């Protein structure tokens, strides 16, 4: 057999300035200009795209909220019509939950994972580019309706029968339904990419008990997505069929089952709640200990509780349906499961508190955001625990109490960790620090604004204010609370604005950061800031959970070797390792930049537009073109080690 099938990799001592490094840069770099922009598969570029796009959606969703908070500031205002209000709160929820909350975390994971694992890219780089483009186009698709005044108007969980054609005749729900099926493709392929990367791309020696703790969060969320996303895609597909082809899945007058919608939706959407928080908790577990100058307390319990939360998370969806008249036995089971889920969450909380308690905290902005998150998580957890109890839920369901709870969860456990993570990893991404002084302001304004805005919602909910009403009568006892909420939400928005200002200023004038400005322990801090396109000149060999802290922790005699390692420079290459022990078992040929992901995303866009307007010509053309781009994408290439040598045939 010729050597194209097998080779012993070179081992060499190299650094980021060697001749090898220059050759690797040439091999891995993305071409400048539009062609490179559309074809790049560099996980760092894709990661930053995800982060920027998700932030833009966060701002859009935030502005929508501010607009309807003006409407709710006082009783009986007519600033917005009920129809506009419905679209605003629906698009706000859809944007934050689907177009911001997971994509932002995928952005960080995309950027960080290969660096954390000592790899040069994700396992499936072209799929990575594809998942970004589909996310972008699906987001635009959903917003196209809103832009022409026909946005989704039935809330993010979109209950039937109101979402059915007889009650909601415009195209509003069709934009949402097809958009969600479209977006599901991005989520699914992105999740698969994370899973394969976790199991196959870790540097030699990074056995399963040595992976950076944050990757457990994204891995768990990704496995959940693989099994949960089909449920919501199907729910929306069946809804679209009901609306467009007179099927009878949900339509009760012809024997359909409206509750089937709720089951399919929540079987997805409750796991989704953990999908959008577990990776964020992971980032805290990674970053918080660095500012406590010690390893995380309880790595194994935290990793296990992450997985346990997700497994339980698949068995609690009915707690969203306590008020639908299901049998008591079913309510009891789901109530118990929802209460038990507090246990793994508490494990993580105590691990973070113990880390702060036994560490020597450095009060950076990132630390403040991470510590603030722990506080908000406890609050959001307690209100969740309360509504897990059936009688309490019967009192509180569909009131502002639930709105308060879900915002404590989503802002507290997603936005605060994300902003903390940005302060922590911005120096790696851009080579400059975010300003710490402005950072303090940023944190305190956001923290105070958030609590001022959302805490009173607990009370308005207890006082019986229903969610999703576009206005309310005076002297219900809700006036002052709503005014405070509106003021708080504007203050919170100012806090977010301070973050944007900080980013804008620091991109140009931020203090320069070296490779490891926080003296952190994981592999991404070995690379220059920002990292070169190839990430690592040689693949490091990992000896512990905290590769850069081994000399001070003195856990064993073994040392991680980063200066000498596998060279792998015959084109784009990376070592593949086995899932448990991370022993090398293959030299993977990594694909170069390619237009195929972008083209396929365009074909899918054509497909969904075709379905939307019932243009079967466009639908079939898009299918044919899409099939051709898939075949072109997968066409076996000699350079990727996918074909037999002609001599051997």
């Amino acid at each position, binding site marked *: 057999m010729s050597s194209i099938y*097998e080779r012993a990799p070179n081992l060499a001592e190299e650094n980021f300035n060697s001749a090898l490094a220059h050759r690797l840069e040439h091999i891995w770099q993305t071409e400048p200009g539009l062609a490179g922009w559309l074809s790049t598969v560099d996980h760092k570029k894709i990661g930053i795209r995800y982060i920027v796009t998700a932030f833009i959606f966060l701002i859009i969703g935030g502005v929508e909220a501010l607009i309807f908070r003006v409407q709710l500031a006082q009783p009986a205002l007519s600033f917005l019509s009920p129809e506009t209000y419905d679209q605003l709160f629906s698009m706000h929820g859809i944007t934050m939950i689907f177009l911001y909350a997971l994509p932002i975390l995928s952005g960080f994971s995309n950027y960080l994972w290969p660096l954390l694992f000592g790899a040069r890219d994700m396992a499936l780089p072209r799929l990575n580019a594809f998942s970004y483009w589909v996310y972008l186009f699906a987001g635009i698709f959903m917003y196209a309706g809103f832009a022409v005044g026909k946005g989704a108007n039935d809330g993010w969980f979109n209950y039937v029968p109101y979402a059915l054609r007889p009650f909601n005749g415009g195209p509003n729900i069709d934009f949402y339904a097809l958009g969600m099926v479209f977006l599901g493709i991005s989520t699914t392929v992105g999740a698969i990419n994370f899973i394969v990367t976790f199991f196959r791309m870790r540097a030699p*020696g990074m056995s399963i008990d040595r992976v950076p703790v944050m990757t457990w969060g994204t891995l768990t969320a990704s496995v959940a997505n693989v*099994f949960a996303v089909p449920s919501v*895609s*199907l729910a929306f597909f069946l809804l679209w069929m009901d609306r467009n082809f007179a099927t009878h899945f949900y339509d009760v007058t012809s024997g359909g089952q409206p509750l089937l919608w709720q089951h*399919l939706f929540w079987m997805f959407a409750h796991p989704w709640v953990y999908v959008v928080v577990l990776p964020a908790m992971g980032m805290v577990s990674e970053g918080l200990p660095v500012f406590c100058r010690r390893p995380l307390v309880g790595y194994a319990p935290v990793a296990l509780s992450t997985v346990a939360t997700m497994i339980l998370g698949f068995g609690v969806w009915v707690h969203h349906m306590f008020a639908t008249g299901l049998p008591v036995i079913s309510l009891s089971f789901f109530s118990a499961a929802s209460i038990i889920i507090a246990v793994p969450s508490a494990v993580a909380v105590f691990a973070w508190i113990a880390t702060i308690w036994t560490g020597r905290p450095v009060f950076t902005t990132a630390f403040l955001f991470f510590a603030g998150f722990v506080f908000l998580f406890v609050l959001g957890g307690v209100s969740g625990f309360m509504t897990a109890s059936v009688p309490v839920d019967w009192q509180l369901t569909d009131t502002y109490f639930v709105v308060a709870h879900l915002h404590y969860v989503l802002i507290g456990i997603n936005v605060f960790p994300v902003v903390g993570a940005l302060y922590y990893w911005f120096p790696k991404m851009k080579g400059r620090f975010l300003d710490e002084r402005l950072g303090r302001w940023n944190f305190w304004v956001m923290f105070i604004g958030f609590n001022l805005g959302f805490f009173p919602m607990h009370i308005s909910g207890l006082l019986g204010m229903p969610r999703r009403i576009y206005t309310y009568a005076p002297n219900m006892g809700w006036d002052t609370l709503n005014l405070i909420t509106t003021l708080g939400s504007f203050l919170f928005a100012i806090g977010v604005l301070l973050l944007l200002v900080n980013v804008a200023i620091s991109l140009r004038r931020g203090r320069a950061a070296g490779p490891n400005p926080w003296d952190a322990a994981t592999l991404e801090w070995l690379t220059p800031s920002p990292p070169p396109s190839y990430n690592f000149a040689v693949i490091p*060999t990992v000896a512990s959970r905290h590769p850069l802290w081994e000399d001070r922790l003195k856990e064993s005699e073994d040392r991680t070797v980063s200066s000498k390692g596998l060279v792998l420079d015959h084109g784009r290459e990376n070592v593949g390792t086995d899932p448990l022990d991370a022993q090398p078992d293959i030299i993977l040929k990594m694909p170069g930049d390619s237009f195929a992901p972008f083209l396929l995303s365009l074909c899918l866009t054509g497909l969904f537009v075709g379905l939307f307007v019932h243009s079967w010509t466009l639908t079939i053309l898009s299918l044919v073109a899409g099939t051709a781009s898939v075949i072109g994408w*997968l066409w076996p290439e000699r350079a990727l080690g*996918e074909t037999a040598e002609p001599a051997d045939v």
Partner: protein
Amino acid sequence: MSEAILKRPLPVGAIDTRASGWWAMIFVVCTEGALFGYLLFSYYYFAVQAHSIGYFPPGGPPSLTLALPDTVILLLSSVAVSWAQLNIKHNDKRHLVMGLGIGAVLGIVFLVVQYLEWAQKQFTISSHPYGSLYFTITGFHMAHVAVGVIALLTLALWSGMGYFNCVRYAHIHIGALYWHFVDAVWLAVFFTFYITPRLT
């Protein structure tokens, strides 16, 4: 980890179950399996509701006349594809192409028979919930078979072009994994629609 381990010779490129594409396909199968799980959940959700309109399925259990032979045809196609996989491991490229080709043809026969069964039905997708479920779920499955047929034909083309041998066959195995999944999931669909109504 010692340098001796790092210096061991390693296979290069797409090799057996170590190829990233193989791993990706495992999880594609997981998510597709989940999709069919939710489709069949929807069927059973209707089937167990006491308030369903009329008998479920309306008119009694569907006939096995076409469905049973069609099931056998689909299973045979999996046998053909397995045979193709065996052949490439022995570097037998002629029989590789033949196995893939037979698999694809049997897949097409399955689709034609399914279409005949569709045409025989006395109801449509919009007649009642059972009709919606029947045409949607079997339609989903037929779409998967169609994708599989295209995959098998593409693999047969690439095989004919001499891209594969007894070392480079990852593409064949990845495509075959999908095809076996599509066949296996039919058994779940078949059991649900044709067998469970006879169990009551």
